């Protein structure tokens, strides 16, 4: 497998506060990478850096490089809308649009120029199948997305992200608002999706990181303390701070 995302010497400042310190990381294509660490450690900040979701924040400054598919995404020539199409994102709270299930999924492809009805139908069906929601909603596509359960709404948001055919899927605590059964469904789904997509997930649930990811990065105070094979990181980490955190002795 080759690297799809490479972060080089990344420093990020919110005003005077340095939120990321000299982060270096290579993420393999079609793998699942988990970011773990206590609140405020920089893991979500790094995730949002990968599709430039931080751009709108006032006073932010970024040094270093983020190279995705051989392009430095902070290069001035980069089209940010296209970047975010290629690097999709799913958030902590399911955030469907106040539209029908169908329109939620068709929204992205429409924006990117697809108007042919049968083409849109095919994309909606494929995306909902990929997100393991199709069987539950195929007869209710015109109904409001708000009628779905939290777990279903989150899978709808994943379908919406997949509909524009991204290369990388960023997930920011995608199951923290869900019940255990919905959480396991999303985890199963993530395992399925890695066959086609590169997935980077921020999670506060260490068992979740251990269950689903290939590689895990442990963040502390804006630094990547340890980035390793998940099995290695959870069974015999190199750094004592990692061991203290994963075994619940932190602080």
């Amino acid at each position, binding site marked *: 497998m080759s690297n799809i995302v490479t972060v080089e010497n990344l420093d990020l400042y919110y005003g005077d506060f340095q939120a990321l310190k000299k982060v270096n990381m290579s993420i393999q294509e079609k793998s699942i990478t988990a970011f773990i660490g*206590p609140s405020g450690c920089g893991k979500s900040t790094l995730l949002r850096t990968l599709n430039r979701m931080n751009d709108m924040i006032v006073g932010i400054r970024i040094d270093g490089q983020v190279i995705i598919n051989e392009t430095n995404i902070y290069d001035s020539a980069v089209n940010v809308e296209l970047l975010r199409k290629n690097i999709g994102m799913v958030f902590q709270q399911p955030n469907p649009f106040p539209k029908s299930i169908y329109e939620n999924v068709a929204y992205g492809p429409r924006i990117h120029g697809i108007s042919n009805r049968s083409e849109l139908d095919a994309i909606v069906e494929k995306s909902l199948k990929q997100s393991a929601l199709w069987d539950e909603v195929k007869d209710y596509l015109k109904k409001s997305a708000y009628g779905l359960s939290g777990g279903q709404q989150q899978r709808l948001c994943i379908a919406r992200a997949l509909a524009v055919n991204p290369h990388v899927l960023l997930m920011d605590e995608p199951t923290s608002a869900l019940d255990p059964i919905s959480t396991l469904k999303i985890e199963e789904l993530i395992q399925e999706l890695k066959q086609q997509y590169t997935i980077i997930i921020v999670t506060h649930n260490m068992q979740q990181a251990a269950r689903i990811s290939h590689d895990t990065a442990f963040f502390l105070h804006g630094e990547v303390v340890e980035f390793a094979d998940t099995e290695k990181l959870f069974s015999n980490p190199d750094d004592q701070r990692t061991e203290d955190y994963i*075994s619940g*002795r932190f602080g």
Partner: protein
Amino acid sequence: MMTRRSQFEESLKELSSEIIHMGERVEKAIHLSVQSLITGDLTSAHIVISQDYEINALEEKIDNIGSTLIATQQPVAKDLRRILISFKIASDLERMADLAVDVAKSAVRLGENHTLKLITDITKMAELAEQMTNESIRAFTEENIDLAYKMAKMDDEVDSLHSKIMHELFTHIANDPQSVNKAILVGFVSRYLERIADHATNIGESVVYLVRGKRPDLNQ
């Protein structure tokens, strides 16, 4: 910030102290069974045989504490290794206690007024096996890898004593065919002590695994 896991820590400590307790019981069982064999005083042998169930119960207790911790605390890394080796050490100790029972039963079969040949070598082996048992548990308590390796080295001496005893027994049987039953018992005792030393070596390996996260082969 997470809180420290005081209840979990307490249970891990309890697990370790049960292992230490079990180790002491096993060491005592080995000592009594060998003394019984050497002195012909069978009281000690009967104590070892009749109290073995208590050592078995300790293994069960350690298994229960460990499995409850796995089920309820999601241990990882060194915590998980500590629980895994507790199962393994308890199993090694239980086997060592059974071997002590075998030595005790051999003492009973030999009877009170035996004239046991090779008593010097058997005594030497027994001392080494006891020392190894003691040091293996001490290596566990102190998480002392150097001691684990040093202890495992003694196994070579035990093995060569075993070979020497077996060799001499063959000569002995050839010269005195009448003594074959007794000689076979002595051969078995030598084998039991050699196995006890192997289990002590396994405990040393578990200690290295606990500390380093990698399993060495101290039996080589």
